[in-house]
């Protein structure tokens, strides 16, 4: 899976943003924390949910089940707005 080109991730201070450009089919603004920012960064390249969980485990000092839950939740939200190419 990969982030669609029509969605532009951006870091603004402590916030992570996902901004739809034209043709995204979604109007609104997705805001989140650094965890979302890290997930979006990983989704710039073709990857899998498992690979994201592994990479996040190396980046953040948190229990694996917490990371897994957060990643799944974020990916589901991104799916809902049509931000992912799968």
């Amino acid at each position, binding site marked *: 899976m990969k982030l669609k080109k029509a969605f532009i991730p951006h870091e603004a201070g402590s916030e992570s943003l996902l901004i739809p450009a*034209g043709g995204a089919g979604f109007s609104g603004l*997705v*805001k989140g924390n650094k965890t979302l920012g890290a997930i979006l960064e990983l989704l710039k390249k073709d990857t899998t949910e498992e690979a994201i969980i592994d990479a996040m485990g190396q980046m953040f000092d948190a229990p694996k089940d917490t990371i897994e839950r957060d990643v799944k939740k974020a990916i589901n939200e991104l799916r809902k707005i049509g931000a992912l190419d799968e």
Partner: protein
Amino acid sequence: MNKTSLSELLNRDGRLIYSNVGDSMMPMIKQGRDLLVIEKPAVWDKLPKNSTTSKLNKYDIALYKRDGGKNYVLHRVLKVRNNEYVICGDNRWNREYGITDRHVLGVLTAIIRDGKEKKLGGWWYTLYVFCWCSLFPVRAFILRGLTFLKRIFRKS
């Protein structure tokens, strides 16, 4: 992860980062390439309702919503009149009238390109605005001509 509408965000934070749809502000703003930093200066909320002070200045790029309009519009102020602004996209030749302070939600203050924020201002921006807006009659003539030719070729 929160979902927020643009006007709510602008009213709450005084600043929002968003993208544009369309080509009306080309060549300065390109869809899919640029992110836009739009701000609502705090002083706007302090302006009295009968204030004669305009929110915008000549050549500001305003984010506004027309009466009954669904979409947000981001175009440049060409003239500031007593009771309205004359507005036009950089890539358009139809001037828009009747936009007043009550329609205006914010003003463009910077553009983010390749992750880097560029404030509007400085010599490059001043030069661009000077050249682009000074040449408005020439651009309008060319764009009108092209539109006319497109119509003719479509019919034939």
